[in-house]
């Protein structure tokens, strides 16, 4: 668990604080996304957590320990760090790059070797062919994967990720995001994730922290932020397709009518209750129908209608007066 208590940071030679009295908490096992325009302080906050920057005032604790009481190098070895520019050491092979932190921690050679192989497989790279290569011989997507593998090498409970998928093309990015979310289901790391892309934030985050000009504007789950934006800045950030984003995060069971009887026949369209409403909508549009049956396993538990979706979006995403 990471806690920030009234953290401010003013860089030397400037008057305006880059980060202004920000407090929040990141719970264990969650992905917490810092999102905002460039210069909003999100990267600075991230870099204060592993002491690459020192706060001007305030307190940061990791698992209850004040990080200022720890040796920065020792602290950083327990926190995974991924950056957009990746920063692989150009004169080391991929294997050597991934074994960096375990080596700093003096793991035995055999354990490091086994761990590197395991990690490269985990991030979808072939240890046999990629392991001996140098960073300049890899594609952008491969380098990003190595960057993530390197950060996870010593199995740190906490990971800091600064636009980790920012430097690859959109198709690879979506692929990497999906893979990472799948990994996270098993790994349950505590992750701080920086992005300027609200779509990525909504997709990756268990929790969003929205920042502007060094101030914390709003925090909450993606659905909370989408349905109750704090002000016009957040509304603008969320974009024009707020309703569609909400449908992506709302489960069918939330909007279904439990009491209506669904006229079941072998041709009727069914959808699982945990699926997002967006998928139900897609189904309705494709088949040109107004309702689908919602089921839990084999059993039909309710009906989701076109009207109930429209009404829901109209209700929750109405612009505030």
């Amino acid at each position, binding site marked *: 668990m990471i806690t920030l208590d009234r953290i401010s940071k003013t860089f030397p030679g400037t008057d305006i604080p880059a980060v202004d009295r920000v407090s929040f908490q990141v719970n264990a096992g969650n992905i917490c996304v810092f999102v905002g325009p460039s210069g909003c302080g999100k990267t600075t906050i991230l870099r204060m957590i592993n002491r690459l920057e020192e706060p001007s005032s305030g307190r940061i604790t990791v698992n209850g320990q004040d990080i200022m009481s720890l040796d920065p190098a020792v602290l950083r070895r327990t926190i995974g*760090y991924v950056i957009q520019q990746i920063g692989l050491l150009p004169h080391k092979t991929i294997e050597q790059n991934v074994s960096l932190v375990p080596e700093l921690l003096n793991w035995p050679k055999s354990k490091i070797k086994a761990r590197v192989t395991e990690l490269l497989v985990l991030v979808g790279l072939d240890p046999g062919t990629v392991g001996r290569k140098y960073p300049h011989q890899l594609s952008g997507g491969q380098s990003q994967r190595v960057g993530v593998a390197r950060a996870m090498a010593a199995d740190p409970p906490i990971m800091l990720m600064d636009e980790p998928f920012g430097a690859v093309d959109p198709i690879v990015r979506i692929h990497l995001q999906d893979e990472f979310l799948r990994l996270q289901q098993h790994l349950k790391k505590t992750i701080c994730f920086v992005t300027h892309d609200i779509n990525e934030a909504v997709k990756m985050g268990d929790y969003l922290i929205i920042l502007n000009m060094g101030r914390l504007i709003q925090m909450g789950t993606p659905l909370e932020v989408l349905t109750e934006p704090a002000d016009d800045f957040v509304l603008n950030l969320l974009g024009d397709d707020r309703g569609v984003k909400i449908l992506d995060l709302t489960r069918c069971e939330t909007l279904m009518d439990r009491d209506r009887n669904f006229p079941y026949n072998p041709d009727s369209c069914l959808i699982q209750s945990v699926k997002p409403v967006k998928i139900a909508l897609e189904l309705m549009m494709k088949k040109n129908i107004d309702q689908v049956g919602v089921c839990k396993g084999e059993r039909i538990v309710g009906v989701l209608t076109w009207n109930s979706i429209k009404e829901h979006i109209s209700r929750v995403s109405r612009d505030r007066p």
Partner: protein
Amino acid sequence: MNFDLDIFMDALTQRAPQYLVEHLQLVVIPLSIAAFIALSAGIILTRPGFRHLADRVMVLFNAGQTIPPLAVIAIFFPFLGLGYGPAILALTIYALLPIARNTIAAVSAVPREVLDAARGMGMTSWQVLCRVELPLSVPTIMAGIRTSAVLTVSTAVLAALVGGKGMGAIIFAGINFFRPELVLAGTIYIGAMAVAMERVIAFVEWLISPAHLK
């Protein structure tokens, strides 16, 4: 002035070779001292606390380069007198600049994101220097040492003027006695030594260069 082949052959095979070791000393000793000083200065001047001083110290090194070696000897003559010591000192000052300049340029050119990642992984400043900054700087630093070496081989000829011996002895003897045979013989050795030094250092550079560049 006519060219006597016998004198030339005699100079080439008998008289000049005895100065080779002396001349090599006049190159290797100043070069080693200069490399040590310039590398240390270059590394210190790229540390965060001293980076703002880098420009000013470079001005100093640049000034060192503009003073003719003879003038350096003249400046230090009252303290050190003539001979071997002042010659070594002048050549050292002369050899400093290319190495220092290249060291600072090389260490400053290590990509920021690589340093950031290295620190972020938990390397100490010392580990970052030894495992990242210096290995990546080897090619540029060695290029500086190579330039300095070639420069010193030719400048060291002047040492003979202040009693510092070396291959300059035979060359200046040739000039004084109007014997181009001696000048030519000495010059051939100087040229050969410059090429040989260059190749040897290039080989060392290849040996210690980072693996991804080989």
